């Protein structure tokens, strides 16, 4: 190996090997490095090696991913809609608007049902959170939050509190009081703290734990009483837009979807990502479990909704139409899992036959984007929230 001739301004102990020698004055990321020429060459070689090893790792990762897709494909001996040919076609649905809930002064961004099957909470860009008795259209509680764009809200399983959050990067819990005159906002308690907007929140089986998803790319499990972070979930490479907790008395998992086009299933206890699906062509706006907990659906900006089965470990159905070009914002299943209600940015709600893959009905009525759809706890109604400032109940 022939050494170069260079002008040495300094002579001294090399920072790397310690031997006294002429030092090369070089700067790496504006930091002065005083190495002898041999150590400089060694450093360059190692850098090359590292670059090479990164490349090999990447290739290995990509190869494994391809292999996984192949494995998943091997068990695809039949399509869901083919098996579903033997069941009867659905009777025509006659779903109509039964209530229109007016009161918000700006886009309604989120809503959640109470376990009593008739109350619900809604949150809006106007910074307000309203608790309604949807059956009587009575507004039971209203509170104004200091920040606008309240993107997430949830009802506690007991019905005694609600949670909400959004652009303030927090999710707060507010106990509901029977006293109408009480200032609810004063009792608001911050529970979750993220480093970007909170996109979704849900209580787990109890009032004491809450799951949140955030624009900071993570999900988190919180102890409501202390505000302590119990577990955080890392794995998404972009904003997480939605999450859903698995419907089971024994469940310990949840699914999340985000702007990285991935839907991930997580173990709540270990924080591990246990399954991942990537077949959408754009942001996943919403994920929702199938009632049995063995599968879930997703809604995306690519104007499709998709159905994934956890046991088959793959996408099993795509719900799309050429005439549907606007993104889907929200999905929910009917009680039997036969119907999938999907809210779109073209102001409509499309009702899909989950098994046959066809569209069963299309619901018109909203005058702007549908931001959220949720079936009531006993399945008797569907509630939709919209950018037209209203919520609608359909049955």
């Amino acid at each position, binding site marked *: 190996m022939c050494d170069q001739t260079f002008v040495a301004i300094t002579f001294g102990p090399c920072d790397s090997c310690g031997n006294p020698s002429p030092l090369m004055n070089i700067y790496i990321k504006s930091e002065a490095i005083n190495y002898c020429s041999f150590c400089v060459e060694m450093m360059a070689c190692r850098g090359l090696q590292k670059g090479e090893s990164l490349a090999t*790792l*990447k290739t*290995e*990762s990509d190869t*494994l991913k391809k292999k*996984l*897709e192949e*494995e998943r494909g091997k*068990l695809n001996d*039949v*399509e*869901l809609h083919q*098996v579903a040919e033997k*069941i009867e076609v659905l009777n025509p649905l006659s779903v109509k608007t039964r*209530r229109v809930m007016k009161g918000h002064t700006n886009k309604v961004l989120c809503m959640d049902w109470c376990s009593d*099957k*008739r109350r619900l909470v809604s949150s809006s860009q106007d910074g307000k959170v309203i608790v309604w008795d949807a*059956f009587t259209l009575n507004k039971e509680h209203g509170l104004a939050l200091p920040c606008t764009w309240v*993107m997430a809200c949830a009802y506690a399983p007991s019905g005694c509190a609600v949670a909400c959050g959004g652009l303030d990067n927090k999710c707060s819990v507010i106990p509901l009081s029977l006293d109408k005159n009480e200032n609810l906002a004063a009792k608001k308690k911050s529970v979750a703290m993220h480093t970007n907007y909170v996109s979704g929140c849900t209580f787990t*089986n*109890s*009032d*004491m734990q809450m799951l949140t998803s955030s*624009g900071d790319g993570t999900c988190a499990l919180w102890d409501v009483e*202390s505000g302590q972070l*119990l577990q955080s979930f890392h794995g998404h490479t972009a904003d997480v837009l939605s999450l859903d907790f698995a419907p*089971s008395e*024994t469940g310990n998992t949840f699914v999340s979807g985000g*702007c990285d086009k991935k839907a991930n299933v997580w173990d709540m*206890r270990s924080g591990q990502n246990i399954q991942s699906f990537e077949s*959408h*062509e*754009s942001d996943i706006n919403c994920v929702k479990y199938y*009632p049995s907990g*063995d599968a879930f659906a997703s809604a995306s900006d*690519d104007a499709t909704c998709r159905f994934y*089965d956890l*046991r*088959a*470990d793959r996408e*099993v159905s795509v719900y799309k139409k*050429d*005439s549907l070009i606007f*993104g889907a914002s929200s999905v929910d299943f009917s*009680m*039997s*899992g*036969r119907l999938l209600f999907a809210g779109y940015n*073209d*102001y*409509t709600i499309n009702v899909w036959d*989950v*098994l046959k893959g066809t569209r069963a009905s299309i619901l*018109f009525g909203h005058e702007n984007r549908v931001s959220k759809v949720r079936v009531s706890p*006993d*399945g008797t*109604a569907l509630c939709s929230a919209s*950018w*037209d400032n209203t919520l609608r109940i359909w*049955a």
Partner: protein
Amino acid sequence: MAQTNSGGQGTNGVADESPNMIVYRKMEEVIARMQEEKNGIPIRTVKSFLTKIPSVFSGSDIVQWMIKNLDIEDQVEALHLGTLMAAHGYFFPISDHVLTLKDDGTFYRFQTPYFWPSNCWEPENTDYAVYLCKRTMQNKARLELADYEAESLARLQRAFARKWEFIFMQAEAQAKVDKKRDKIERKILDSQERAFWDVHRPVPGCVNTTEVDIKKSSRMKNPHKTRKSVYGLQNDIRTHSPTHTPAPEAKQPTEEELQEQITFWQLQLDRHRLKMSKVAESLLGYTEQYVEYDPFLTPPDPSNPWISDDTTLWELEASKEPGQQRVKRWAFGIDEVLKDPVGREQFLKFLESEFSSENLRFWLAVQELKKRPIREVPARVQEIWQEFLAPGAPSAINVDSKSYAKTTQNVKDPGRYAFEDAQEHIYKPRRRRVRTCSEGSCFQGKPLASKRLTSRLSSC
């Protein structure tokens, strides 16, 4: 199954297509087809009184074309999609500020691609002021300002009082240039310019289709692509809407991250998967079992409260006397029994009367433990240990030695999952379908069904 990259992946792997762009591209594809010479919508010049109306087509033409050429089922759907395309400004009614599609002889015109929303227009108020000012300089009845426009103009005059002279001069210059144009060309350009402003400054009460979801707008990849000035006006202050934070460059994954990914894929490859045919049967079976409990498919008895305004259904469900249909559901599986508070209560009572119930009580206690605030956990763990597992416990449960050893360890440093192993030994959730009871009476009269459920609880 789509494994393709979405269109428009940048060189650094970041998608150039923001969610809005995807929709614009799709609409533009439809527009391109509509404008095809052979199979598109016929565009014509219509003679009217003393004038000619250039380059128009009727609303019905659009509806008919859509039904014929797109995957659209009926007129309602066509009108809906067509109205959306008009609201985004791709075609517009020539005599109305309100951008909707009507299935009649109303005349429409295509918008020039220059004004398409995919060009990321964000026109400033100064431009709007120039535009409105220019309109007042033209002595044409059809170009008179509508009420809401006159109000806007007045408001802008107040807001830009200091630079109004400049705005006026711009408007004059524009008007001069316009006058020099060919009459027909002018008609078309004027209408297209008006349609552009109808999208960006919509009639009060109309949807503003340029509104974006704030979660997405903060990821706008190309703030440089945004066009702010229609008439070439420079703004003194560089106004950037707060949502224009340029997205950070996508980081190349580190060695550690790649290792994690590789481990993850390897774990996934080792996963046991079911065949699609089996999964499909399971999904069909589940739906079949629950169809009678789905109010959208089987009208509830006596009625759906939301439709009939009668809350009897809810009152019946709240009562302590569960109906036949509800009890039948408990036989579907242990999950259903535990989900329903009345079911749980009944089952517990039954177990206590027939034989020991400590397994279920332990299981329920551990579930409850996981729902408590973290502060209460250590004390509760001790209580559960004393009641069910400690030597000489009053409600001793049977657990294998391995789980018992593990649990003993866990209890020393108590957390929410201290009893996880023991709990799994007592009950591992299975999704096998349980044959339904033929008669839906409570457990007392159905020892067989309840024994089946109980054995599920205590065996693995």
